C-alpha cells in the first residue's frame, strides 16, 4: 500500500504545535468576497422592502388620528386611543369570539381530516386509484370561495336542488344555508370539501420521506398494519404535524375572509362576523377610518406573533424542532 503523500513539511522534533487563530473577517472583507451573493439577493430584498417592510412601517397610523388628506407629520399622535375604541366597540368581542370559534373548529375538525386522508391515500397501493382519488380530493382547493358558496347554495339552499326535491316529495325546504344555528357545520363541510385535499398533499410529502425499509423490517417482525402506522408513520410525520400546528396557532386570528363575507347576508352578521370582516365593514368600507382598521390589524399581528413564539417554545420543550432550531 503506497504511503500517503503530503506537501506539508514534516514536523521537526521538539517543535511546538502552532495553533492557528483565524482572525474574524471585517465587514468590508466579507463584502468584497460575498458581493455577488448579496447582489443576487437584491431583487428579493427589494420585493420584501416594498411589499412588506414599507407597508408594515405604516402600522404607525394606528397611533395617529390619520387622514390621507394631511401631510404625514401633521397627523396628531393619539397614543392608544384607537385601541381603546377598538376594545370598547361592542361588536369587537363577538367578532373575536367567532374568530376563535371557527379557528379552533378548523383545527379540531379539519386538521385531523387532512392527516386521515393522507394516511388513507398512502395506504392505497394502486397508482391509478391513488391518482384519481388525489385529483378528486385536491381539485376543490383551486376553486374560489365564490364558487364553493354558490355550489352549496344551489345544492342545499332554500330554493336549491335538494329543497326542490324534498318539496316534490311533500317535504319542507331546507334552511341549511341561511340558518345561523347550523353554520358551523356548514362551514366545516365547506372547509372539508375545499381545503382538506391541500392539507393532505403536505402530509403525503412528509409520508414519502419515511424510509420504506422500516415498514419492511416491521412487517418481517410481525407488526400489524395498525402497529406500523402507530410506530413508524405517525412518528415519521410528527415534525411536519408540529410545524403546521404552530403555524396554524400563529394564524388563529386569521380564519379567512371571503367565506364569511359571502354568506354574511344569508346567515346574518352575528354568526359570520370574524375579525377580518369586522375590519372590512368598520374600516375599509366603513366609517371608522384607516387608523381603526390598522389598530385592529396590529392587534391581530401581535397576538399571532406571541402565539407562534409560545407554541414554538412548547414544541421545543417537547423535543420537537418547531419552526426554527433551538440554539
Amino acid at each position, binding site marked *: 500500500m503506497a504511503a500517503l503523500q503530503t506537501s506539508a513539511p514534516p514536523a521537526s522534533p521538539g517543535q511546538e504545535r502552532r495553533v492557528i487563530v483565524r482572525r474574524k473577517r471585517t465587514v468590508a472583507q466579507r463584502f468584497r468576497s460575498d458581493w455577488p451573493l448579496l447582489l443576487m439577493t437584491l431583487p428579493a430584498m427589494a420585493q420584501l422592502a416594498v411589499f412588506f417592510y414599507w407597508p408594515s412601517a405604516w402600522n404607525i397610523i394606528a397611533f395617529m388620528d390619520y387622514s390621507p388628506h394631511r401631510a404625514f407629520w401633521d397627523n396628531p*399622535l393619539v397614543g392608544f386611543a384607537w385601541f381603546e375604541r377598538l376594545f370598547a366597540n361592542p361588536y369587537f368581542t363577538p367578532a373575536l369570539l367567532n374568530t376563535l370559534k371557527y379557528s379552533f373548529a378548523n383545527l379540531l375538525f379539519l386538521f385531523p381530516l387532512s392527516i386521515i386522508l393522507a394516511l388513507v391515500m398512502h395506504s392505497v397501493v394502486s397508482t391509478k386509484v391513488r391518482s384519481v382519488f388525489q385529483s378528486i380530493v385536491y381539485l376543490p382547493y383551486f376553486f374560489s370561495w365564490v364558487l364553493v358558496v354558490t355550489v352549496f347554495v344551489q345544492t342545499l339552499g332554500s330554493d336549491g336542488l335538494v329543497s326542490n326535491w324534498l318539496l316534490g316529495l311533500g317535504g319542507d325546504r331546507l334552511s341549511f344555508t341561511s340558518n345561523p344555528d347550523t353554520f358551523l357545520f356548514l362551514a366545516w363541510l365547506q372547509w372539508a370539501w375545499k381545503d382538506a385535499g391541500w392539507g393532505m398533499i403536505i402530509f403525503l410529502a412528509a409520508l414519502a420521506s419515511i424510509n420504506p425499509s422500516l415498514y419492511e423490517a416491521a412487517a418481517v417482525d410481525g407488526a400489524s398494519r395498525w402497529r406500523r402506522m402507530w410506530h413508524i408513520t405517525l412518528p415519521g410525520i410528527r415534525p411536519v404535524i408540529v410545524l403546521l400546528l404552530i403555524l396554524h396557532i400563529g394564524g388563529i386570528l386569521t380564519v379567512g375572509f371571503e367565506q364569511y363575507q359571502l354568506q354574511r*347576508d344569508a346567515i346574518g*352578521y352575528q354568526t359570520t362576523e370574524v375579525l377580518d370582516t369586522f375590519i372590512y365593514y368598520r374600516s375599509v368600507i366603513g366609517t371608522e377610518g384607516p387608523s381603526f382598521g390598522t389598530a385592529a390589524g396590529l392587534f391581530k399581528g401581535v397576538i399571532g406573533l406571541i402565539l407562534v413564539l409560545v407554541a414554538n417554545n412548547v414544541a421545543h420543550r417537547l423535543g420537537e424542532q418547531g419552526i426554527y432550531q433551538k440554539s
Partner: protein
Amino acid sequence: MATPSDGSIFRRRSLFKAAGLGIAGAAGLPVIAACSDIETGSGSSQETSGFDFLPEYKEWPLPVEPDLIGEPPNHPSGFTTYPEPVPAIENVPSNSGTFEITVPMWGEAPSPSEPYFAAITEACGGTQVNLRQADGMTYAETSVQWLNANEFGDGIMFFSWMTGSNPNFQETVVNTFYDLTDIVKGDISERWPLLAGLPTASWGQSVWSTDPKDPDSARVFGIPGSFSGGPGNAVFARTDLLEADGLAMPTTVEELLEVARAWSDDAGGRWAFGGLDYLTPSWFGLASADGWAYIDGKLVHNCERPEYTEWLEFRRTVWDEKLVHPDIPSGTLDGQALHKAGTILFQLDGISWWQGFVDQAAAEGLTGSIAPLGALSAKGREPLVYVNQSVDSWTFLRKDLSKEQVEEFLDFCNFASAPFGTTEYELLNYGVEGTDFNYGPDGVPVYTASGAKVVQAPVNHKTISGHVQQFITGTPDMVQARFEYNAALKDFAEVNIFEGMRVEGPADFKSAAQVLNDQQNDIAYGRAELSTIPDMVQTFLDNGGEAAREHYTAAYDKLHG
C-alpha cells in the same frame, strides 16, 4: 432542518429580541409624544343657502312648454307628446380635451366604441368624456379607497345617497376636488347659459366649507345633477297577476298582507314579495335618510319609536308566513327577473322600473303590466311618502386640473344640461336615430335593442350634470300615469326637517346605524327575536346614537332657532 450557524439571526433569542424591539418601538413612539384626542369623523353640518358666490340664476327659456302642468319639485310637469327638438346651444365650442370620469353602473357596461359616444363627442364640440364605469352595488363603499388614493380619473360622480359611506365626506371634498367658485360665481350665462339656468338651490347644495367651523370658508366644489323631486322608489305590483286571481290593488298595509297571503304559494314557487327594506318604513310613518324626526320638542330616532317595532313585526310576519322569497336574505336575487317571470308579485325598486318593465317586456315578448302601490299606511295613520329632497347627484373634478381644463369640462356640462325638447337632450337620452332609437307611430322615440343596452343605462353622459328643468317624459300613457301618481302622492310627501342644511353624522353614529340595519335584517329573516329590539336600540344609542342626537339637534337649532 440545518442547524443555523452562530451568526444566524434566525435563532430563538434573536427572534425574541427582534419582536421585543418591534413591540417596544411601536408602543414607545406614541408614548414619548404628547397625545391628543381623535377628532376624525366627528360629523359636520353645512348650510346650503344664502351664499353670494353662486352662479347668478338666469332663466333658460324652454323651446316648448309641457302640456301637463304639475307643481315641481314633487309633482313635476310632463309631456304627453314628443316635440320637434331644437338645438339648445347655438355656438358650439371647439374643444379637443379628453376626460376620464368615474361613474357608477348597474348592469353591463357598454363598449366605449359605440357610435353613441362618438356622436356625443362630436355634438358637444370635441370634448371626449370617457366613462370609467364601476359596479353601482359597491360604488359608495369602494369609492372611499379610490378617493384616498386619488385614483378616480379626472372626475367622479356621486349620487347624494352615496356620500354617507365616507367617514368624512366634507374633508374629502375640500381636499380632493377642484374649487369651482372663482370660475362659476356671478354671471356665467354668456358662456354657460344652461348651467346658469340650473336652480340656485342646486348650486347651493354643491357647497362645502373648507373649515367646517367657519361658515365664511364655504366654496362651490360640485357640479349639481338634476333636482328630480317626487318619489324615487316604489313598490310595483304585477296588476295582470292580481287581476287573474281576482285580487284588488291594496290601499293599506293590512290589505297588502291579505293580498300577499291570498297570492303566495311557497310550495308552488311563488311569493308576494322580494325585498322589503328601504321603503317600507314609510308605511309606518318612520323617517327617511338618517332616521331623525322632530317629535314633542326633541329629535327622536326611528328605532326609539313604537312604529319601529310595528314595522319589524310586519317584516317578520311576511317571513314567517312564507310570503317573501326564501333566498332574499342572500342579497343576490335578481328581483326584476323574478318580477318579470311572475315569481314575485310585488317588486321594490327605483321609479324607473315602471318604464323599464314595459321596455323589457316588449323587447323579450313578455305579457304583463305593473303599477306602483299608492301611499300606504298601517292602522289608519296619515300616509307618509319619501321624496327626493336634494339634487340627485354631483360631479366633482380633481383638484390638480388646470383652469382651462375645468372650463372645457363645464362646456360639456352646459351641453349635458339641455332639457327635454332639445337636440342635445335627444342625443344624450335616446342616442343616434336609426342605431339607438327610431320614432314610433306617435312620434315618440323608441329604443332599439342597441339603444336599450347602450343609451338606456341609468348613468352615463346624460347624468353628468343636471337639466335646467326636469319633466316626466316617455310614452303618452306612461307620462299620464306617472303624472297622476305624483299628483296623488304629493300631499303626503315627507317634510325635510333639515331643509337648507346638509348634516353629516358622526362616524360612530354611521357605524352604529349600520349595525342596527344588520340587526333589523336578523329580526326580519327570523335569525333574532322581536324581543331583542330594546337591547339593540340601547346598544345603538350607547354607541353613537345618543351623541349623534346632540349633533343633529345642534344643526336643527341652528336652522330653526
